[in-house]
Protein backbone atom coordinates (compact mmCIF):
# COMPACT_ATOMS: atom_id res chain seq x y z
CA UNK A 1 0.00 0.00 0.00
CA UNK A 2 2.81 2.38 0.94
CA UNK A 3 4.77 1.34 -2.15
CA UNK A 4 1.95 2.36 -4.50
CA UNK A 5 1.76 5.71 -2.73
CA UNK A 6 5.50 6.23 -3.20
CA UNK A 7 5.26 5.39 -6.89
CA UNK A 8 2.26 7.68 -7.30
CA UNK A 9 3.98 10.60 -5.59
CA UNK A 10 7.24 10.03 -7.48
CA UNK A 11 5.37 10.06 -10.77
CA UNK A 12 3.66 13.34 -9.82
CA UNK A 13 6.95 14.88 -8.72
CA UNK A 14 8.70 13.96 -11.96
CA UNK A 15 5.81 15.30 -14.02
CA UNK A 16 5.78 18.57 -12.10
CA UNK A 17 9.53 18.99 -12.51
CA UNK A 18 9.12 18.64 -16.24
CA UNK A 19 5.96 20.75 -16.46
CA UNK A 20 6.92 23.63 -14.19
CA UNK A 21 8.94 25.56 -16.75
CA UNK A 22 7.00 28.78 -16.75
CA UNK A 23 7.81 32.13 -18.21
CA UNK A 24 6.11 35.47 -18.33
CA UNK A 25 3.77 35.69 -21.33
CA UNK A 26 1.42 38.65 -21.77
CA UNK A 27 -2.08 37.99 -23.01
CA UNK A 28 -2.26 37.76 -26.78
CA UNK A 29 -5.83 38.99 -26.98
CA UNK A 30 -5.97 41.95 -24.63
CA UNK A 31 -3.25 44.57 -24.48
CA UNK A 32 -1.34 45.10 -21.23
CA UNK A 33 -3.03 42.11 -19.64
CA UNK A 34 -1.24 39.15 -18.22
CA UNK A 35 -3.46 36.17 -17.52
CA UNK A 36 -2.79 32.55 -16.63
CA UNK A 37 -3.34 30.83 -19.95
CA UNK A 38 -4.22 27.50 -18.38
CA UNK A 39 -7.39 29.06 -16.94
CA UNK A 40 -8.51 30.85 -20.08
CA UNK A 41 -7.60 28.21 -22.66
CA UNK A 42 -8.23 30.66 -25.51
CA UNK A 43 -4.97 29.96 -27.35
CA UNK A 44 -4.36 26.27 -27.97
CA UNK A 45 -0.78 26.91 -29.05
CA UNK A 46 0.06 28.04 -25.53
CA UNK A 47 -1.31 24.91 -23.86
CA UNK A 48 0.44 21.62 -23.33
CA UNK A 49 -1.26 18.25 -23.17
CA UNK A 50 -2.85 17.64 -19.76
CA UNK A 51 -1.48 14.70 -17.84
CA UNK A 52 -3.74 12.51 -15.68
CA UNK A 53 -2.01 10.32 -13.09
CA UNK A 54 -4.28 7.78 -11.39
CA UNK A 55 -3.33 5.79 -8.34
CA UNK A 56 -6.67 3.97 -8.42
CA UNK A 57 -10.27 4.80 -9.30
CA UNK A 58 -10.66 7.06 -6.27
CA UNK A 59 -7.33 8.90 -6.30
CA UNK A 60 -6.03 10.86 -9.25
CA UNK A 61 -4.09 13.96 -10.15
CA UNK A 62 -4.61 16.14 -13.21
CA UNK A 63 -1.74 18.40 -14.29
CA UNK A 64 -2.59 21.00 -16.92
CA UNK A 65 0.26 23.15 -18.15
CA UNK A 66 0.53 26.28 -20.25
CA UNK A 67 3.31 28.70 -21.08
CA UNK A 68 2.88 30.86 -18.00
CA UNK A 69 0.87 28.78 -15.56
CA UNK A 70 0.19 25.28 -14.35
CA UNK A 71 -2.95 23.90 -12.71
CA UNK A 72 -2.81 20.83 -10.49
CA UNK A 73 -6.09 19.19 -9.44
CA UNK A 74 -6.26 16.43 -6.86
CA UNK A 75 -8.90 13.86 -6.03
CA UNK A 76 -8.37 12.54 -2.50
CA UNK A 77 -9.31 9.02 -1.41
CA UNK A 78 -12.55 8.70 0.55
CA UNK A 79 -13.17 5.17 1.74
CA UNK A 80 -16.48 5.68 3.56
CA UNK A 81 -19.08 8.33 4.34
CA UNK A 82 -17.21 9.66 7.38
CA UNK A 83 -14.00 10.13 5.37
CA UNK A 84 -16.10 11.70 2.65
CA UNK A 85 -17.51 14.45 4.88
CA UNK A 86 -14.21 14.98 6.70
CA UNK A 87 -12.32 15.38 3.40
CA UNK A 88 -15.02 17.67 2.03
CA UNK A 89 -15.00 19.84 5.19
CA UNK A 90 -11.22 20.03 5.45
CA UNK A 91 -10.57 20.80 1.79
CA UNK A 92 -13.32 23.40 1.72
CA UNK A 93 -11.79 24.92 4.88
CA UNK A 94 -8.43 25.17 3.11
CA UNK A 95 -9.93 26.53 -0.12
CA UNK A 96 -11.72 29.30 1.78
CA UNK A 97 -8.31 30.35 3.18
CA UNK A 98 -6.56 30.16 -0.19
CA UNK A 99 -4.85 33.54 0.28
CA UNK A 100 -2.71 31.99 3.02
CA UNK A 101 -1.37 29.45 0.51
CA UNK A 102 -1.07 31.79 -2.50
CA UNK A 103 -0.91 28.88 -4.93
CA UNK A 104 -4.26 27.37 -3.91
CA UNK A 105 -7.35 27.85 -6.02
CA UNK A 106 -10.51 28.97 -4.17
CA UNK A 107 -12.69 26.58 -6.11
CA UNK A 108 -11.55 23.15 -7.20
CA UNK A 109 -11.88 22.05 -10.79
CA UNK A 110 -15.07 20.07 -11.40
CA UNK A 111 -14.61 16.43 -10.58
CA UNK A 112 -11.75 17.07 -8.16
CA UNK A 113 -11.45 17.92 -4.48
CA UNK A 114 -8.78 20.62 -4.53
CA UNK A 115 -6.82 22.58 -7.13
CA UNK A 116 -3.60 24.60 -7.26
CA UNK A 117 -2.80 27.36 -9.72
CA UNK A 118 0.90 28.18 -10.05
CA UNK A 119 1.96 31.06 -12.26
CA UNK A 120 5.37 32.31 -13.37
CA UNK A 121 5.22 34.95 -10.63
CA UNK A 122 4.97 32.24 -8.00
CA UNK A 123 8.01 30.56 -9.51
CA UNK A 124 9.92 33.81 -9.14
CA UNK A 125 8.93 34.31 -5.49
CA UNK A 126 9.19 30.69 -4.42
CA UNK A 127 11.85 28.14 -5.14
CA UNK A 128 10.67 25.67 -7.77
CA UNK A 129 12.01 22.54 -6.06
CA UNK A 130 10.53 23.50 -2.73
CA UNK A 131 7.23 24.33 -4.40
CA UNK A 132 7.12 20.85 -5.87
CA UNK A 133 8.09 19.46 -2.45
CA UNK A 134 5.22 21.43 -0.96
CA UNK A 135 2.69 19.97 -3.42
CA UNK A 136 3.85 16.42 -2.77
CA UNK A 137 4.04 17.00 0.99
CA UNK A 138 0.54 18.51 0.85
CA UNK A 139 -0.84 15.35 -0.73
CA UNK A 140 0.75 13.17 1.95
CA UNK A 141 -0.33 15.46 4.77
CA UNK A 142 -3.93 15.65 3.55
CA UNK A 143 -4.25 11.87 3.58
CA UNK A 144 -2.64 11.72 7.01
CA UNK A 145 -4.83 14.51 8.41
CA UNK A 146 -8.04 12.93 7.16
CA UNK A 147 -7.07 9.51 8.56
CA UNK A 148 -6.17 11.07 11.92
CA UNK A 149 -9.41 13.06 11.98
CA UNK A 150 -11.43 9.93 11.28
CA UNK A 151 -9.64 8.01 14.00
CA UNK A 152 -10.10 10.89 16.47
CA UNK A 153 -13.82 11.12 15.73
CA UNK A 154 -14.23 7.37 16.21
CA UNK A 155 -12.22 7.43 19.44
CA UNK A 156 -14.27 10.34 20.75
CA UNK A 157 -17.47 8.46 19.88
CA UNK A 158 -16.27 5.42 21.78
CA UNK A 159 -15.32 7.44 24.85
CA UNK A 160 -18.66 9.26 24.85
CA UNK A 161 -20.53 5.95 24.44
CA UNK A 162 -18.58 4.53 27.41
CA UNK A 163 -19.43 7.55 29.54
CA UNK A 164 -23.09 7.29 28.55
CA UNK A 165 -23.26 3.63 29.54
CA UNK A 166 -21.67 4.37 32.92
CA UNK A 167 -24.88 6.15 33.83
CA UNK A 168 -26.90 2.91 33.69
Amino acid sequence: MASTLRLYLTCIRNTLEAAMCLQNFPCQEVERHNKPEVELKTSPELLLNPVLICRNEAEKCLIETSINSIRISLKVKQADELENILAKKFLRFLSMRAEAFQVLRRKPVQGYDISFLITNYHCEELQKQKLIDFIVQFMEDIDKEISELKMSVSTRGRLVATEFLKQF
Partner: protein
Amino acid sequence: MASFERASPALKEILLRIYNAEKPIEVDHHLYEFGSVEYHIKSSVSEPQVTYLSISTPFLSQGVFLSYGLSPFTLKMVRQISTDVLHIVEPANDGYQLTLRLDFSKLPHNKESLNIITEVSSVQAVILSSQLKEMLQNVNSGDSSQGMYKPIKLIYHPKEPFYVIRQPQKIVAVFPMRFKDNSDVIIATSFFQELIDVVSLKKWAKVPPCNWSPIPPLELRGEPFEDLSTNGGFVSFDISSHHVEGKRLDKIVWSLLNFYAYVKHHVKCTRGFIQRRMRRGLDNLIEVLEKSRVEDGQIKKVQGWKKMRKMVASKSKMIKRRWGDLGKKIKRIRFRIKIHGFARFRRRWLKMPSFSSSTGYTKLQTNGNNN
Protein backbone atom coordinates in the same frame (compact mmCIF):
# COMPACT_ATOMS: atom_id res chain seq x y z
CA MET B 1 -18.75 15.37 30.10
CA ALA B 2 -22.15 16.96 29.45
CA SER B 3 -24.12 17.68 32.56
CA PHE B 4 -27.88 17.53 32.16
CA GLU B 5 -29.17 18.99 35.37
CA ARG B 6 -32.57 18.07 36.62
CA ALA B 7 -33.06 21.32 38.51
CA SER B 8 -34.30 24.37 36.66
CA PRO B 9 -31.55 27.01 37.14
CA ALA B 10 -33.95 29.97 36.97
CA LEU B 11 -36.40 28.46 39.45
CA LYS B 12 -33.57 27.56 41.82
CA GLU B 13 -32.23 31.11 41.71
CA ILE B 14 -35.64 32.62 42.48
CA LEU B 15 -36.30 30.23 45.37
CA LEU B 16 -32.84 30.87 46.83
CA ARG B 17 -33.38 34.62 46.58
CA ILE B 18 -36.69 34.31 48.47
CA TYR B 19 -35.11 32.03 51.10
CA ASN B 20 -32.02 34.21 51.61
CA ALA B 21 -33.89 37.53 51.64
CA GLU B 22 -33.32 39.47 54.86
CA LYS B 23 -36.80 40.98 54.75
CA PRO B 24 -39.95 39.30 53.45
CA ILE B 25 -40.47 40.22 49.79
CA GLU B 26 -43.51 40.19 47.56
CA VAL B 27 -42.97 37.86 44.60
CA ASP B 28 -45.37 37.02 41.78
CA HIS B 29 -43.21 35.58 39.06
CA HIS B 30 -44.10 33.66 35.88
CA LEU B 31 -41.30 31.59 34.42
CA TYR B 32 -41.29 29.81 31.05
CA GLU B 33 -38.88 27.10 29.96
CA PHE B 34 -38.43 25.04 26.81
CA GLY B 35 -41.46 26.74 25.27
CA SER B 36 -44.00 24.58 27.06
CA VAL B 37 -43.13 24.46 30.78
CA GLU B 38 -44.55 27.22 32.96
CA TYR B 39 -43.86 28.01 36.59
CA HIS B 40 -45.70 30.46 38.79
CA ILE B 41 -43.93 31.48 42.00
CA LYS B 42 -45.88 33.50 44.51
CA SER B 43 -44.75 34.77 47.88
CA SER B 44 -46.43 37.47 49.92
CA VAL B 45 -45.32 39.62 52.86
CA SER B 46 -48.27 38.43 54.99
CA GLU B 47 -46.91 34.82 54.87
CA PRO B 48 -43.14 35.40 54.77
CA GLN B 49 -42.02 31.79 55.17
CA VAL B 50 -44.46 30.33 52.67
CA THR B 51 -44.09 30.28 48.92
CA TYR B 52 -46.54 28.82 46.42
CA LEU B 53 -45.13 27.12 43.34
CA SER B 54 -47.42 26.09 40.46
CA ILE B 55 -46.24 24.01 37.53
CA SER B 56 -47.72 23.42 34.12
CA THR B 57 -45.84 20.91 31.96
CA PRO B 58 -46.88 18.80 29.00
CA PHE B 59 -47.07 15.16 29.93
CA LEU B 60 -44.76 12.57 28.46
CA SER B 61 -47.66 10.57 27.08
CA GLN B 62 -50.64 12.69 26.03
CA GLY B 63 -53.17 9.93 25.60
CA VAL B 64 -52.81 8.01 28.83
CA PHE B 65 -52.52 10.66 31.52
CA LEU B 66 -54.40 13.69 30.27
CA SER B 67 -57.84 12.63 31.37
CA TYR B 68 -56.73 11.69 34.88
CA GLY B 69 -54.23 14.49 35.65
CA LEU B 70 -51.22 13.47 37.71
CA SER B 71 -51.21 9.85 38.74
CA PRO B 72 -50.96 8.87 42.41
CA PHE B 73 -47.48 7.47 41.69
CA THR B 74 -46.36 10.88 40.40
CA LEU B 75 -47.83 12.66 43.43
CA LYS B 76 -46.04 10.18 45.67
CA MET B 77 -42.72 10.87 43.91
CA VAL B 78 -43.26 14.63 44.31
CA ARG B 79 -44.01 14.30 48.05
CA GLN B 80 -40.81 12.28 48.47
CA ILE B 81 -38.76 15.37 47.48
CA SER B 82 -39.23 16.70 50.99
CA THR B 83 -42.09 15.70 53.26
CA ASP B 84 -41.52 18.57 55.72
CA VAL B 85 -41.05 21.48 53.39
CA LEU B 86 -43.33 20.55 50.50
CA HIS B 87 -47.11 20.11 50.59
CA ILE B 88 -49.36 19.51 47.62
CA VAL B 89 -52.25 21.94 47.35
CA GLU B 90 -55.46 20.48 46.03
CA PRO B 91 -56.98 21.50 43.79
CA ALA B 92 -54.14 23.03 41.78
CA ASN B 93 -54.37 26.64 40.55
CA ASP B 94 -56.19 27.29 37.29
CA GLY B 95 -54.09 26.47 34.26
CA TYR B 96 -51.57 24.39 36.21
CA GLN B 97 -51.30 20.67 36.86
CA LEU B 98 -49.71 20.98 40.29
CA THR B 99 -49.49 23.59 43.02
CA LEU B 100 -47.01 23.18 45.88
CA ARG B 101 -46.86 25.00 49.19
CA LEU B 102 -43.24 25.44 50.28
CA ASP B 103 -42.65 26.14 53.97
CA PHE B 104 -39.14 27.58 54.25
CA SER B 105 -39.34 27.67 58.05
CA LYS B 106 -38.95 23.88 58.01
CA LEU B 107 -35.70 24.06 56.06
CA PRO B 108 -32.61 23.10 58.09
CA HIS B 109 -30.12 25.91 58.74
CA ASN B 110 -27.16 24.32 57.03
CA LYS B 111 -26.01 23.27 53.59
CA GLU B 112 -28.82 20.72 53.45
CA SER B 113 -31.21 23.59 52.70
CA LEU B 114 -29.47 24.18 49.37
CA ASN B 115 -29.92 20.51 48.46
CA ILE B 116 -33.62 20.61 49.31
CA ILE B 117 -34.17 23.78 47.26
CA THR B 118 -32.32 22.11 44.37
CA GLU B 119 -34.59 19.08 44.68
CA VAL B 120 -37.67 21.32 44.67
CA SER B 121 -36.37 23.07 41.53
CA SER B 122 -36.24 19.69 39.79
CA VAL B 123 -39.96 19.03 40.30
CA GLN B 124 -40.65 19.16 36.55
CA ALA B 125 -38.04 16.44 35.91
CA VAL B 126 -39.57 14.41 38.79
CA ILE B 127 -43.06 14.63 37.24
CA LEU B 128 -41.90 13.52 33.80
CA SER B 129 -39.52 10.81 34.96
CA SER B 130 -42.15 9.37 37.33
CA GLN B 131 -44.39 8.63 34.34
CA LEU B 132 -41.64 6.64 32.64
CA LYS B 133 -40.70 4.98 35.94
CA GLU B 134 -44.27 3.78 36.34
CA MET B 135 -44.10 2.09 32.94
CA LEU B 136 -40.67 0.54 33.49
CA GLN B 137 -41.46 -0.73 36.99
CA ASN B 138 -44.08 -3.05 35.52
CA VAL B 139 -41.69 -4.79 33.11
CA ASN B 140 -42.79 -8.29 33.98
CA SER B 141 -46.41 -7.55 34.68
CA GLY B 142 -47.48 -7.13 31.06
CA ASP B 143 -50.76 -8.67 29.93
CA SER B 144 -49.57 -11.66 27.99
CA SER B 145 -52.99 -12.31 26.46
CA GLN B 146 -52.32 -9.57 23.91
CA GLY B 147 -50.11 -10.73 21.05
CA MET B 148 -48.65 -7.39 20.00
CA TYR B 149 -48.44 -4.43 22.36
CA LYS B 150 -49.27 -0.98 21.04
CA PRO B 151 -46.29 1.37 21.25
CA ILE B 152 -46.73 4.33 23.60
CA LYS B 153 -45.49 7.62 22.17
CA LEU B 154 -43.65 9.79 24.71
CA ILE B 155 -42.54 13.39 24.15
CA TYR B 156 -39.80 14.81 26.37
CA HIS B 157 -38.33 17.26 23.88
CA PRO B 158 -40.72 19.04 21.50
CA LYS B 159 -40.82 17.42 18.03
CA GLU B 160 -38.63 14.54 19.24
CA PRO B 161 -40.92 11.75 20.33
CA PHE B 162 -39.70 8.33 21.33
CA TYR B 163 -41.62 5.10 21.80
CA VAL B 164 -41.93 2.59 24.59
CA ILE B 165 -43.18 -0.84 23.60
CA ARG B 166 -44.14 -3.37 26.23
CA GLN B 167 -43.15 -6.94 25.33
CA PRO B 168 -43.06 -10.20 27.27
CA GLN B 169 -40.20 -10.02 29.83
CA LYS B 170 -38.91 -6.67 28.55
CA ILE B 171 -39.70 -3.13 27.51
CA VAL B 172 -38.20 -1.70 24.34
CA ALA B 173 -37.47 2.04 24.09
CA VAL B 174 -37.10 3.18 20.45
CA PHE B 175 -35.66 6.58 19.50
CA PRO B 176 -36.23 7.82 15.92
CA MET B 177 -33.23 10.06 15.26
CA ARG B 178 -33.46 13.19 13.10
CA PHE B 179 -30.75 15.70 12.24
CA LYS B 180 -30.75 18.89 10.21
CA ASP B 181 -27.40 18.45 8.47
CA ASN B 182 -26.08 15.49 6.49
CA SER B 183 -22.71 15.67 8.26
CA ASP B 184 -24.53 15.47 11.62
CA VAL B 185 -26.20 12.28 10.42
CA ILE B 186 -22.86 10.70 9.57
CA ILE B 187 -21.21 11.73 12.86
CA ALA B 188 -24.21 10.43 14.81
CA THR B 189 -24.28 7.16 12.84
CA SER B 190 -20.60 6.66 13.63
CA PHE B 191 -21.41 7.27 17.32
CA PHE B 192 -24.26 4.74 17.27
CA GLN B 193 -21.97 2.11 15.77
CA GLU B 194 -19.41 2.73 18.51
CA LEU B 195 -22.21 2.53 21.11
CA ILE B 196 -23.32 -0.86 19.78
CA ASP B 197 -19.71 -2.10 19.73
CA VAL B 198 -19.13 -1.01 23.32
CA VAL B 199 -22.42 -2.51 24.57
CA SER B 200 -21.51 -5.86 23.02
CA LEU B 201 -18.38 -6.11 25.21
CA LYS B 202 -18.45 -8.42 28.26
CA LYS B 203 -17.63 -5.52 30.57
CA TRP B 204 -21.00 -3.93 29.79
CA ALA B 205 -23.15 -7.03 30.08
CA LYS B 206 -25.31 -5.41 32.79
CA VAL B 207 -26.49 -2.46 30.69
CA PRO B 208 -29.56 -2.68 28.46
CA PRO B 209 -28.66 -4.06 25.01
CA CYS B 210 -28.67 -1.45 22.29
CA ASN B 211 -29.44 -1.72 18.57
CA TRP B 212 -29.41 0.63 15.61
CA SER B 213 -31.38 0.19 12.44
CA PRO B 214 -31.86 2.46 9.42
CA ILE B 215 -35.47 1.31 9.03
CA PRO B 216 -38.23 1.42 11.66
CA PRO B 217 -38.56 -1.73 13.77
CA LEU B 218 -41.53 -4.03 13.16
CA GLU B 219 -43.34 -2.87 16.28
CA LEU B 220 -43.62 0.69 14.94
CA ARG B 221 -44.98 -0.16 11.52
CA GLY B 222 -48.47 1.11 12.26
CA GLU B 223 -47.38 4.56 13.49
CA PRO B 224 -47.92 7.84 11.54
CA PHE B 225 -45.52 8.38 8.67
CA GLU B 226 -44.29 11.80 9.89
CA ASP B 227 -43.12 10.23 13.16
CA LEU B 228 -41.21 7.48 11.37
CA SER B 229 -39.52 9.57 8.67
CA THR B 230 -35.96 10.00 9.91
CA ASN B 231 -32.49 10.45 8.50
CA GLY B 232 -30.55 9.08 11.47
CA GLY B 233 -32.17 5.70 11.82
CA PHE B 234 -33.70 4.15 14.95
CA VAL B 235 -31.88 3.41 18.21
CA SER B 236 -33.54 0.92 20.56
CA PHE B 237 -32.78 -0.18 24.12
CA ASP B 238 -34.12 -3.46 25.54
CA ILE B 239 -34.88 -2.98 29.23
CA SER B 240 -35.39 -6.05 31.40
CA SER B 241 -36.47 -6.30 35.02
CA HIS B 242 -32.93 -6.53 36.42
CA HIS B 243 -32.06 -3.19 34.75
CA VAL B 244 -34.66 -1.34 36.81
CA GLU B 245 -33.93 -2.73 40.28
CA GLY B 246 -33.48 -0.27 43.14
CA LYS B 247 -31.59 2.94 42.35
CA ARG B 248 -30.91 1.86 38.79
CA LEU B 249 -34.47 2.73 37.83
CA ASP B 250 -33.95 6.44 38.41
CA LYS B 251 -30.65 6.44 36.48
CA ILE B 252 -32.02 4.54 33.53
CA VAL B 253 -35.09 6.77 33.30
CA TRP B 254 -33.00 9.96 33.32
CA SER B 255 -30.59 8.53 30.72
CA LEU B 256 -33.44 7.57 28.40
CA LEU B 257 -35.17 10.92 28.75
CA ASN B 258 -31.94 12.76 27.89
CA PHE B 259 -30.70 10.45 25.13
CA TYR B 260 -31.59 12.89 22.35
CA ALA B 261 -29.93 15.81 24.12
CA TYR B 262 -26.84 13.67 24.77
CA VAL B 263 -26.46 12.68 21.14
CA LYS B 264 -26.98 16.22 19.87
CA HIS B 265 -24.48 17.57 22.39
CA HIS B 266 -21.92 14.98 21.24
CA VAL B 267 -22.47 15.87 17.57
CA LYS B 268 -22.05 19.58 18.33
CA CYS B 269 -18.86 19.02 20.32
CA THR B 270 -17.46 16.78 17.56
CA ARG B 271 -18.02 19.50 14.98
CA GLY B 272 -16.13 21.96 17.19
CA PHE B 273 -13.34 19.41 17.62
CA ILE B 274 -13.08 18.89 13.85
CA GLN B 275 -12.90 22.66 13.35
CA ARG B 276 -10.03 22.98 15.85
CA ARG B 277 -8.12 20.13 14.22
CA MET B 278 -8.56 21.69 10.79
CA ARG B 279 -7.12 25.00 12.02
CA ARG B 280 -4.10 23.19 13.39
CA GLY B 281 -3.69 21.29 10.12
CA LEU B 282 -3.85 24.58 8.20
CA ASP B 283 -1.04 26.09 10.30
CA ASN B 284 1.16 23.03 9.72
CA LEU B 285 0.64 23.16 5.96
CA ILE B 286 1.39 26.88 5.74
CA GLU B 287 4.67 26.34 7.59
CA VAL B 288 5.85 24.01 4.83
CA LEU B 289 5.06 26.60 2.14
CA GLU B 290 6.87 29.40 3.99
CA LYS B 291 10.11 27.45 3.77
CA SER B 292 10.02 27.62 -0.01
CA ARG B 293 10.26 31.43 -0.12
CA VAL B 294 13.30 33.01 -1.79
CA GLU B 295 14.98 35.28 0.80
CA ASP B 296 16.65 38.59 -0.05
CA GLY B 297 20.32 38.13 -0.95
CA GLN B 298 20.02 34.38 -1.09
CA ILE B 299 21.88 32.90 -4.00
CA LYS B 300 19.62 30.53 -5.84
CA LYS B 301 21.16 27.09 -6.02
CA VAL B 302 20.42 26.08 -9.56
CA GLN B 303 22.25 23.24 -11.23
CA GLY B 304 24.69 24.35 -13.88
CA TRP B 305 25.31 27.73 -12.28
CA LYS B 306 28.04 26.64 -9.83
CA LYS B 307 30.81 28.19 -11.95
CA MET B 308 28.89 31.40 -12.18
CA ARG B 309 28.88 31.63 -8.36
CA LYS B 310 32.70 31.72 -8.39
CA MET B 311 32.75 34.32 -11.11
CA VAL B 312 30.50 36.65 -9.16
CA ALA B 313 33.09 37.87 -6.77
CA SER B 314 33.15 41.61 -7.05
CA LYS B 315 31.28 43.57 -4.47
CA SER B 316 29.80 46.03 -6.93
CA LYS B 317 28.14 43.28 -8.93
CA MET B 318 26.62 41.84 -5.75
CA ILE B 319 25.23 45.22 -4.78
CA LYS B 320 23.90 45.67 -8.31
CA ARG B 321 22.10 42.33 -8.12
CA ARG B 322 20.53 43.17 -4.76
CA TRP B 323 19.27 46.49 -6.07
CA GLY B 324 17.87 44.67 -9.10
CA ASP B 325 15.92 42.22 -6.92
CA LEU B 326 14.65 45.03 -4.75
CA GLY B 327 13.63 47.03 -7.80
CA LYS B 328 11.67 44.07 -9.17
CA LYS B 329 9.89 43.62 -5.84
CA ILE B 330 8.97 47.28 -5.70
CA LYS B 331 7.56 47.08 -9.22
CA ARG B 332 5.58 44.00 -8.36
CA ILE B 333 4.05 45.45 -5.22
CA ARG B 334 0.46 46.36 -5.84
CA PHE B 335 -0.49 49.50 -4.05
CA ARG B 336 -4.02 49.16 -2.69
CA ILE B 337 -4.17 52.75 -1.62
CA LYS B 338 -3.51 55.14 -4.50
CA ILE B 339 -1.64 58.28 -3.47
CA HIS B 340 -1.91 61.11 -5.96
CA GLY B 341 1.53 62.02 -7.32
CA PHE B 342 3.28 58.97 -5.84
CA ALA B 343 3.97 57.44 -9.24
CA ARG B 344 5.99 60.52 -10.23
CA PHE B 345 7.83 60.44 -6.87
CA ARG B 346 8.60 56.79 -7.40
CA ARG B 347 10.02 57.35 -10.86
CA ARG B 348 12.21 60.19 -9.70
CA TRP B 349 13.52 59.06 -6.30
CA LEU B 350 13.11 55.30 -6.18
CA LYS B 351 14.88 54.71 -9.45
CA MET B 352 17.59 52.05 -9.51
CA PRO B 353 20.98 53.82 -9.17
CA SER B 354 23.34 53.26 -12.05
CA PHE B 355 26.81 52.09 -11.14
CA SER B 356 29.78 52.79 -13.30
CA SER B 357 31.18 49.63 -14.75
CA SER B 358 34.82 48.73 -13.93
CA THR B 359 35.36 47.59 -17.49
CA GLY B 360 33.61 50.58 -19.03
CA TYR B 361 35.27 53.78 -20.26
CA THR B 362 34.51 57.43 -20.19
CA LYS B 363 33.97 58.91 -23.58
CA LEU B 364 36.32 61.85 -24.09
CA GLN B 365 34.97 64.98 -25.63
CA THR B 366 36.81 65.75 -28.83
CA ASN B 367 37.94 69.36 -29.57
CA GLY B 368 37.43 68.89 -33.25
CA ASN B 369 41.19 68.54 -34.02
CA ASN B 370 42.46 65.01 -34.36
CA ASN B 371 46.20 64.85 -33.73
